[in-house]
């Protein structure tokens, strides 16, 4: 393991721990939009974690997974926020 791999894996572990802290807001957010914001932040943290692990192990294929996950995360936020306002106007 080189120095760069150690740095990237440490950062990935820190991002996972930070996501676990944000789960607090996911469990007892008073409104539904609080929970959507928490899910969005956790999802973007997971995207960054996948990219950091891809950099640590020089795994090029994992970057594609991170890109697709970021796309799904964005679509989920837009769909939920639009769905809750119009009560099913999207679908």
């Amino acid at each position: 393991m080189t120095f760069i791999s150690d740095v990237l894996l440490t950062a990935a572990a820190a991002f996972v721990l930070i996501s676990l802290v944000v789960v607090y807001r996911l469990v007892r957010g008073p409104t539904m939009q609080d929970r959507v914001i928490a899910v969005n932040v956790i999802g973007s943290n997971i995207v960054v974690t996948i990219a950091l692990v891809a950099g640590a192990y020089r795994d090029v294929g994992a970057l594609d997974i991170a890109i697709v996950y970021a796309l799904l995360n964005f679509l989920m936020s837009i769909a939920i926020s639009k769905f809750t306002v119009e009560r099913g106007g999207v679908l």
Partner: protein
Amino acid sequence: MTPREIAVLVLAAGGVFFAVVAAVGIVRLPDLYTRSHSASKSDTLAAGLSLAAVAVTFGLDVSTVKAVLLLLFMFITNPTAAHAIARAAAEEGIEPWTRDGADSGSADGTGSGPTDGTGSGPTEREVEE
């Protein structure tokens, strides 16, 4: 340490720092809109710095282009999603937090004012239906 190692270390440390700032803001701030502000700015900067560290790691390669494109994508979509969520909350009728409601809670910033204030919106909506 080579210059590339120093760059990766600085960028990853900055990313983790701003992710901690975003998490503290999301857990501690009193209102949905202030939490959305914390999520959209600090978390976007954290993701950008960390993905820049990944891009520097790969050097000159095709995967560097992928990492930079992922960085640009998250740089655009993360604030957009936060804006959409906050706008949905505003259209649902959730009131922003003001200092007037927090006077009763006084010393500890987590007084029950903000959570009760945000709870009034959906119930009014239920009554309408």
